[in-house]
């Protein structure tokens, strides 16, 4: 069991070192056998992992990986969480007095902005909000996986969701300006993805640059 965990950790360490340090990853992997003979495999592997992570900011591929994780965990996942809360909050068809705290504590007041003729739209609007939030989870994974084709699909889906919400809220006589905030978040994500994808293309090859357009 320890041997398997140590080898697993070593695999992550080797991958974290990137292509230009792959020989060092192999060197560490071979030394793991010596550590195993001394019953220090786990400590050795864990140290190698920490060492590999410490070297990541020193090379371009490592900086790219760290930035990808920062973008996924620091931007995309928090936006998904906010969208889920907003959907549960009744956005965009419930006017909430007392704000988020009032909603969570049950002390706030919620006023339904839909009238008798449009209140049937409520569940559908919530569903679209939750779909918008849900599409951010695979989006975060595909960014880490550098699968830019699927990233584009997820962003298109998010854009379609926001457009749908804007049209339906307008038809329901709600204020469509409410959609400016999620639209701005999506624009921010799109810009960040575009920069990351171009960076990835510069690091690993030019095919992607052709797909992204002439300006790079």
């Amino acid at each position: 069991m320890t041997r398997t965990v140590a080898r697993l950790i070593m695999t992550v360490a080797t991958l974290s070192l990137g292509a230009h340090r792959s020989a060092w990853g192999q060197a560490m992997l071979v030394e793991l056998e010596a550590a195993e003979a001394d019953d220090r495999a786990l400590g050795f592997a864990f140290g190698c992992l920490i060492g590999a992570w410490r070297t990541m900011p020193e090379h371009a591929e490592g900086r790219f990986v760290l930035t990808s994780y920062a973008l996924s965990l620091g931007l995309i996942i928090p936006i998904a969480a906010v969208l889920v809360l907003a959907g549960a909050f009744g956005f965009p068809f419930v006017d909430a007095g007392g704000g988020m705290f009032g909603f969570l504590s049950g002390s706030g007041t919620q006023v339904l902005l839909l009238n008798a003729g449009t209140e049937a739209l409520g569940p559908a609007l919530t569903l679209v909000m939750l779909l918008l939030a849900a599409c951010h989870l695979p989006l975060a994974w595909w960014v880490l996986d550098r699968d830019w084709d699927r990233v584009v699909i997820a962003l298109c889906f998010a854009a379609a969701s926001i457009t749908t919400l804007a049209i339906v809220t307008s038809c329901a006589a709600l204020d469509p300006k409410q959609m400016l905030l999620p639209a701005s978040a999506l624009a921010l994500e799109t810009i960040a993805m575009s920069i990351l994808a171009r960076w990835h293309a510069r690091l690993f090859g030019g095919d992607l640059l052709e797909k992204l357009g002439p300006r790079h």
Partner: protein
Amino acid sequence: MLILMEALAARAPGWCHGYDLMKATGLLSGTLYPLLMRMTDQGLVDAQWQAPVSAGRPARHAYRLTAAGLRLAVTGRDAGRASSGVAFPA
């Protein structure tokens, strides 16, 4: 880094393996390997794959100080002795 250089200098011009260096210096793998990588990049350490000593064993990565690394190790050792105020015989 000085500990590592001293350990490598003590074995110069011979080659050392990573795990043996860990045991000799007391450094953890998370400290040793980034140091070796940096020193190799700076031209202070040579690294090479060595053929296995017995059949069925994998090749191992071995390290030794370059001439520049050896000079720096000697300079560092002398500076350490001078700063500690210990007198050494000529």
